[in-house]
Structure formats: structure tokens, C-alpha cells
């Protein structure tokens, strides 16, 4: 491990682990925010079991002096307060790194930890045996020391008692809750980081609970001083405060999507609880009431014509509705949309399976609706809390019969924000269901990103009529030159219409007339061409790297982060040139743009987090162009940048056709 400044880009990889329910998340948020507050960019990855309490969870935070978009395989500091974390992750700590642990746990035996899987236990035991060591935590630490890892034994219990004396609190169970915070404070001391930043981090992690913040800060100081006084060694990485001129937020994927929905004018969201999507709806429910902006000169609010007799509030509100299942969730979003509301539902794969039915109804009746899908590992219940990009083909083809839709995928938090707003614009403009694909990695990662610029956002409602239509003839499904029929909300005078899942005429009444059937199919499916024509290229794809490269990577969604970080590393190593094509709108597929981009490509490396390389298959189907090499991963853990780097190097060196990566705990 090099000292600060040895590399072009400084990165620190920090990890904390512990039993679920013991505050791993809040301590990681504390660390991430405090480090960001010291002027660094951070990216954090959260891994947890489908379990409430007791199973192992961990959080890996990478801090850097330039924007960081992914995690790495190695760890510089492993902060722990239980034995399991050390047994599992000590091996990831690289030479020169450090392990913070509870000195009281040194005699813990590997065999006594029920939550480590038998396969992993055997693997750890084998490693220890190869080093002629026993199976206690002390043995693991000895092995680490032999590799040049520093160890930091912390007497948590003594320090907790000392903290209790200072703040006048004797209740040990209460004090013990701060052990996670203490592990963060120890990390700060080792990195010689500014302890006052921890106070800001505590305020962020514990929100407004001032008493909790103060108590934890006292504990931080006790630990910070202890580490400072007892470990004089010069840890090779330090995190002095640095100036960061950017206005940043520290945010996760579910939160940024929630905020974007409020901006987008979404005023109804239905959902059925599911991991990892539910956090978004819960966030929205918490923030359901919000203020309205004052308008600039010459502009004014566009009031709905249906509200003509109302004294409206000066506040806005989004109604978040927890439905009985996902069948109802999508139907409710559609019902609200019929009433003129921008409406959405949010789910993951298993929930989306149930939504296939409602999706077809929206397609058939040309009703705008946004379905936010945070993918997780399938099939069936799969790995409920783990990552995968396995639902691309499913979301494109879900539902019986043929109807138009847009399937779009965001590559990172910032894209997720703007894409959420675009999803509502597309849904209303083309009067179709829009599926916005995200995933567990985006949902649960935290990242520092520039504050999105809301004042550049436009809400395009397409042919949404905001007036009563007295005396005019209104046909909801009127054949028009532009391909889209003007739409009114339920309750509009002079515009009564009908909807049916049956084939229907222009009024919306059931029709089995073969001529009308063909025209209606043409009308609906014709929107796909309209979409292709009207969405700008920059919203459909993004390209990075050398446009004339012979080697191209293609991918979609959250693999963007690790790929871009890997490309930076490869460039530093002099490997390349490599191009990277990120497809953002997956359906209708931007075939011409992909063909154009890849015309110089001799090798097309498809990188995806699924078994079969779903986008590669899609591209082959839509363009005739097949990926030459496939790098896939489906073990439930997101790609790290170092993993992508290594896999790409292998493809470049040996032209390996299919590489299955399997890193991550």
C-alpha cells in the first residue's frame, strides 16, 4: 500500500461489519458523511442478509480525492466490534492495512460462530491450517500480521465504562449501543482525521436526536484519545481535511429516486413491501408533505381545471399507498393516472412478476404509468437482499400480447434522478407504461454526488388536456396524425370515455372488428417508432473512452460505476484504448446508435450482472451484432472496479469468451 500521493488518485477502502441490528448501517453512514465532510468523495456499498437480527452485514466505503463510483476488492481498514467480521473479512485487508477489533474476543473460535456458513468455515479453517494456526480469532490476526497487516486491539468494554462515567450513565445496555460508533472513531484516529467532522457525521446519521449525538461524540473522543495514545505507529494513509469546492449530497438510490418523483410531479405512489424497493416508498411517505416554490416573474402555476372551485393549499402532497399486493399496486397507480395524476409504483422482480397483468392494461388503454423496478437476484425469491441485473429481458417482454413500453436503466445516482423525471415525461408524452430499471446496488449504495439542478427540469405532459370540453366531440382513442390521442382526466365535462382491456374503438367501447383491430394495433405499436424518433441520442446511449477503439465494452445500469473506475485504472496501467458503450434506453432498442458506435469494434466485451448476458442477446436480436466476449457475475454481489479491471485484462490477454466473476462476501 503506497502512501498518500504515490498514486494519481488517492483512495481509501474502509469496511465495517457486524451482526444485523447492531448499527452497522448507521456507523457506515457516520463514517461516510464524516469523511465527505472532511472534503473527500465517497462511495459505499451495503451488503446484508435477508434477516432482521443476527446475520452478518457489512458496509464498504471508498473515499477518494476525486469522484468515486464503485468499491474495490481490497480493504485498508477493517473496523469491527464482533468476531465474525474479522473471521470473514481479515483476508481482504491488504499489506500495510489495519484491523480494528475487540480485544475481549481474541479467544473466540471459528466453530462457535453459528452464522458463518459451513462452506466458508471450512475455507477459513483450511487457510489457517495452511499457516499452521489454530481456529481462534487470535490465529486469524496472527495470519494477518504475517501478511504485514497492523492490528488494533480495542478494549471496548473499558472504554464504554469510561464513557459512562463521563456522561453519568450507568446503564450498560444503553452504552453498549455505541460500540459501532467507537469503531468509527478508532478508524478516524488511525487515519489522523479531524474528530470534529465526526460530530457532523453523527448529526447526519442520527438526524435531530441531539442527546444521542452528544453521547456518541463523547464516546468518540474517549476512543480517539485511546487509539492516539496507544498506537503510535504511522499508518501509511492519512485523511487530513481537504478543500472540496463542490456542493455535494450524500445519498442512496432509493432516496434520490424518491426526491426525483416529488420534483417530477408524481402525486400518487402505490407499493407493496419488498426488498430493496420499499425504502423508496417509505421515504416518500415520510416526506409526503412539501412546500411549493414561488414562481418567477411572468410565470404562474398551472392549476388543474378540475380544481376550479377549490381553495388549494400552499403545500404539496404525495399520497403513498401501501396496497394488498403488487397486482393492486400497479392497478392503483393506473387508477390514479386515469384521474389525471402522475402516478407510479415501485417494486422488485417478484412484485413485477405480478404487475405483468396491469402493465398490459396500461398498454392497451394508453395510460401513462411509471414502474420503478429495483432489481434483485432471482429467480423466484432468489437472493432477496442481493444484487443482480436479471430482469432486463423480462421487463421488456412482460405481459401477454404486444403493446408499447419504454424500458430505461440508470447507471448511477445522478442518472437515476434525471431518469426518474424523464420516465414521467415519456409516460405522459407517449401515453404508455415506462419501466425504470434500477437495482439493489444502486438502491443501497451511498454516494456523494453534486446536488441535482432542479431548475433546469421541465415537466412535459404531452397531449394532456387541462380544460373542460363542452360541446365538442371527444374520442379518447381518436386516430390522429401524430399517433397520440389527446387525454383528459376523469371528471372532465364533455369528455366521457371508456376504457377496456378488450380491443376497442375510438370511444373505448369493445370492438372485434378486424379493421379496427388492425388500426388500433398499428396506433399503439406505432408509438415505438415515435419514441425512437423523438428521444435524443444522448438519452438513449452514452459512450466513454476512445471512439476509434478496437476493443469495446458494452453494458447497462449500475455496472457503469465499476466499469468507469476500471477504465481509469487500465488507462493508468497503459492498457487500451478501450471504448465503453452504456445503453440507457433498452426498449425500444437504439439499434442504429449501437451499430454506429461499434463500427470500429473488433472485440465487443459484454459486461453484465446476470448469467446469460441479457443485453448482449438483445443487441444481437436488434442489430445482428453479437458480443464476442462475455464477462458476467451472478453471485449476488456487485462488481468491484478491480474485478472488472482484472476480467477485462484477461479478455484482452487471452480473448477468453466467457468469464464468470465471483468476488465479494
Amino acid at each position, binding site marked *: 500500500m503506497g502512501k498518500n500521493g504515490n498514486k494519481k488518485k488517492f483512495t481509501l477502502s474502509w469496511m465495517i461489519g457486524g451482526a444485523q441490528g447492531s448499527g452497522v448501517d448507521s456507523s457506515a453512514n457516520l463514517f461516510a458523511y464524516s469523511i465527505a465532510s472532511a*472534503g473527500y468523495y465517497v462511495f459505499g456499498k451495503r451488503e446484508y442478509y435477508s434477516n432482521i437480527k443476527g446475520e452478518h452485514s457489512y458496509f464498504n466505503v471508498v473515499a477518494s480525492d476525486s469522484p468515486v463510483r464503485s468499491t474495490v476488492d481490497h480493504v485498508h481498514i477493517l473496523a469491527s466490534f464482533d468476531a465474525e467480521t474479522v473471521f470473514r473479512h481479515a483476508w481482504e485487508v491488504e499489506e500495510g492495512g489495519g484491523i480494528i477489533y475487540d480485544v475481549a474476543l481474541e479467544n473466540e473460535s471459528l466453530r462457535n460462530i453459528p452464522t458463518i456458513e459451513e462452506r466458508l468455515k471450512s475455507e477459513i479453517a483450511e487457510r489457517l491450517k495452511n499457516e499452521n494456526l489454530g481456529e481462534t480469532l487470535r490465529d486469524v490476526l496472527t495470519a494477518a500480521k504475517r501478511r504485514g497487516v497492523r492490528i488494533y486491539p480495542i478494549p471496548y468494554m473499558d472504554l464504554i465504562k469510561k464513557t459512562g462515567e463521563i456522561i453519568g450513565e450507568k446503564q450498560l445496555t444503553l452504552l453498549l449501543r455505541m460500540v459501532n460508533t467507537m469503531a468509527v472513531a478508532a478508524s478516524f484516529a488511525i487515519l489522523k482525521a479531524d474528530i470534529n467532522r465526526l460530530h457532523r457525521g453523527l448529526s447526519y446519521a442520527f438526524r435531530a436526536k441531539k442527546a444521542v449525538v452528544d453521547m456518541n461524540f463523547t464516546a468518540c473522543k474517549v476512543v480517539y484519545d485511546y487509539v492516539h495514545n496507544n498506537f503510535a505507529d504511522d499508518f501509511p494513509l492519512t485523511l487530513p481535511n481537504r478543500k472540496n469546492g463542490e456542493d455535494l449530497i450524500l445519498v442512496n438510490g432509493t432516496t434520490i429516486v424518491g426526491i426525483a418523483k416529488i420534483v417530477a410531479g408524481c402525486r400518487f405512489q402505490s407499493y407493496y413491501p419488498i426488498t430493496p424497493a420499499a425504502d423508496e416508498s417509505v421515504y416518500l411517505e415520510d416526506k409526503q408533505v412539501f412546500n411549493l416554490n414561488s414562481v418567477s416573474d411572468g410565470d404562474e402555476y398551472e392549476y388543474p381545471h378540475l380544481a376550479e372551485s377549490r381553495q388549494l393549499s400552499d403545500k404539496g402532497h404525495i399520497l403513498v399507498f401501501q396496497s*394488498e399486493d403488487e397486482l393492486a399496486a400497479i392497478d392503483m397507480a393506473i387508477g390514479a393516472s386515469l384521474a389525471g395524476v402522475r402516478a407510479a409504483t415501485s417494486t422488485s422482480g417478484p412484485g413485477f412478476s405480478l404487475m405483468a397483468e396491469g402493465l398490459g392494461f396500461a398498454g392497451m388503454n394508453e395510460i401513462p404509468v411509471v414502474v420503478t423496478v429495483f432489481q434483485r437476484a432471482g429467480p423466484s425469491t432468489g437472493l432477496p437482499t442481493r444484487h443482480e441485473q436479471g430482469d432486463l429481458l423480462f421487463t421488456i417482454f412482460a405481459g401477454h400480447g404486444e403493446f408499447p413500453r419504454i424500458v430505461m436503466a440508470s447507471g448511477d445516482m445522478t442518472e437515476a434522478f434525471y431518469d426518474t423525471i424523464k420516465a414521467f415525461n415519456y409516460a405522459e408524452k407517449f401515453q404508455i407504461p415506462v419501466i425504470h430499471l434500477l437495482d439493489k446496488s444502486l438502491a443501497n449504495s451511498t454516494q456523494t454526488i453534486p446536488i441535482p439542478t*432542479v431548475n433546469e427540469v421541465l415537466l412535459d405532459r404531452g397531449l394532456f388536456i387541462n380544460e373542460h370540453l363542452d360541446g365538442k366531440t371527444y374520442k379518447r382513442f381518436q386516430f390522429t396524425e401524430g399517433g397520440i390521442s389527446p387525454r383528459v382526466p376523469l371528471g372532465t365535462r364533455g369528455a366521457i370515455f371508456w376504457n377496456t382491456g378488450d380491443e376497442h374503438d375510438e370511444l373505448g367501447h369493445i370492438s372485434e372488428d378486424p379493421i379496427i383491430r388492425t388500426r388500433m394495433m398499428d396506433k399503439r405499436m406505432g408509438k415505438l417508432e415515435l419514441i425512437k424518433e423523438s428521444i435524443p441520442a444522448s438519452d438513449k446511449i452514452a459512450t466513454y473512452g476512445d471512439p476509434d477503439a478496437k476493443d469495446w465494452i458494452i453494458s447497462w445500469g449500475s455496472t457503469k460505476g465499476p466499469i468507469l473506475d476500471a477504465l481509469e485504472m487500465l488507462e493508468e496501467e497503459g492498457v487500451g484504448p478501450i471504448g465503453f458503450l452504456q445503453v440507457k434506453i433498452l426498449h425500444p432498442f437504439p439499434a442504429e446508435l449501437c451499430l454506429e458506435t461499434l463500427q470500429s469494434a473488433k472485440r465487443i466485451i459484454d459486461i453484465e450482472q446476470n448469467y446469460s448476458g441479457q443485453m448482449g442477446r438483445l443487441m444481437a436480436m436488434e442489430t445482428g451484432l453479437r458480443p464476442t466476449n462475455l464477462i458476467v457475475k451472478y453471485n449476488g454481489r456487485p462488481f468491484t472496479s478491480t474485478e472488472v479491471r482484472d476480467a477485462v485484462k484477461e479478455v484482452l490477454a487471452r480473448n477468453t469468451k466467457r468469464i464468470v466473476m465471483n468476488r465479494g462476501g
Partner: protein
Amino acid sequence: MTVTQKLTMAHFRTTLFNDWCPGCGDFGILSSIQMALAELQIEPHKVAVFSGIGCSGKTPHYINTYGIHTLHGRPLPFAIAAKLANPELTVLAVGGDGDGLGIGAGHFVAAGRRNVDITYILHDNGVYGLTKGQASPTLRRGLKTKALPRPNLNDAVNPIALAIVCGYTFVARGYAYDTRHLKELIKLAIQHKGTSFIQVLQPCPTYNDLHTKEWYAGEDRIDPETQKPIPRLYKLEETGYDGEVKSPSEEEAIAKAVEAIKKSYEWGDRIPIGVFYRNPFVPSYDQRVATVAPVYLQSPPALQPIRTKSMKPVADVSPLFDELRVLY
């Protein structure tokens, strides 16, 4: 149409050809709905009728109001959301017994927990008509209607009792051929502030050869004295039965519910129709939302501005960003 013009049943009719079987109970339900809306003088464009799948699913097409013929079993989720989005709408849901108590049973149960101000009319004929007469969830065990190759092995669900235990606050039963009575029930249901449920007994002249118009009329049992049939149906209100909860007391609500459930088990020789249960003291869903977000009553989802005339969003999310902002 001006507001002063008196609305009649004709205002609620469409000119569409109606393809129900001659003698179908659906006709009675359709005209009862049209009469109720006309008598309540609700303007057609302020009404939205949601339906499920099957013969009854076609009902909205014959009514001149907004009509949303949804998916099998799903009229309630659509209807509930539309009402919550714009509470100024009068929202009705209609569907068959298979629709509401078979494929849509989950929604039936959940709707009772919410008390959204809508009216749900269940067309109950004991069979799946449009798929040629299979047994529905309300057909009793051992019965063999004419399209069944073997007698029905499932027990029937009791829609009135189920609605009451699910929490519906207005629970009634009508008969499709007694349109005057049914129309009054529908009017009461629409006027009730909360979720209203009306089970409508209806013959299926094509597939239910057991519960026919003649059977309901008791033509199989002639009074030896008068030589007239003894009808099976009787009206609860004519017996002095009163299912209305009169005070906000839980004790009274439970007592009335138990009484109504007991009543709902009467079947065969004497079948009650009318209002089984009504509780006006349960807060409706909009009132519940208002307890956590008072703004909802003033500015429900469909009636809020979301953008300015120059297409800018109106929501101020800066406080949300501030909570997440990195302070140096």
C-alpha cells in the same frame, strides 16, 4: 348540458347494443344504477364506473359516465385509487361473484379495511357465465348447475358475512329483478360516506338452472290457501330489522355486526334482502389521510398544480437536499 337541467335515466344511457342474454339479471342492475344516479342528480361526467371481467364487466359500456372496464378481479384497486386521487368523483365498482370473491378476493378483503368512499356492487349469480357456467365462489356445495359435469365440491362463501368482518361500513343485499328496491339501496350506498357493498342476487337464465327467477319467486311452492307462490325473498326493513349503528360505541357496532352476520346465514326458504349493516362512525380513508397530512383534503393528488405554465416543477425539494448536504 346546463346544471339546472333535471337529469333523467336517459342521460345515463349509451346507444350501444347490449349483448347480455335475454332475461339476464344484469339488466336490472344496470337500470337500477342509472335510476339511482338520475335520482341523485349527479352529473354524468362526475361519475366513474369501474368493472371487472365477465358479463357484468360490460356494465360501464352501457352507462353514460366515465367507464373503466378493468381486469378480472381488479375493479376495486382501480376504483379506490381514482377516488383517492380525485375525491370529487362519485366512484362505483361493479363485478361478478367470481371476479370479487374468487380471483379478486384479496382486494375484497383489503377494501374493507380502508373505508374509501366508493360503492361496490357484486353481481351474484353463482356461476361464471361468460366461460360457460362453471361454479362460482357463491355456489353451494353439492349443487349441480346445468353446465357442471359433477356437483360442486366447494363450500360457498357468505359475501355479506365476509364484507362485515372485513370492515365494510355499509353492507346490503338486493335482487336484480326488484329494481325499485335495488335502486334505493344503491342511492343509500352512494350517499354513505365510506365503502358500501351491495350483493345483488341475480338469475343467470342461461347457466344457473337452480336459482332461477321462478325459484326466487317461490313458484315451486304454492300456498295451499291462496294458491299463490310463496316468495323466497323478503325485505329486512319490513320485519323491523335495523342494521344501523346509532352511536360511536364499539360495543354497539359489534352487536350489530353479529346480528347481521347471523341474519346473512338465512338461505333457502327465506332469503333476506335490504340493509344488513351500516356504521357511519368509522372514519373514511380521506379523513384518515388528513390526520397525517391535513393538506390532502384541500389538495388531493389530481387537484394540485405540479408545474408552472412554463413547465417548471412546483415542488420545493431543497429541504430534502439540505438534509443530505455535505457540510465542510
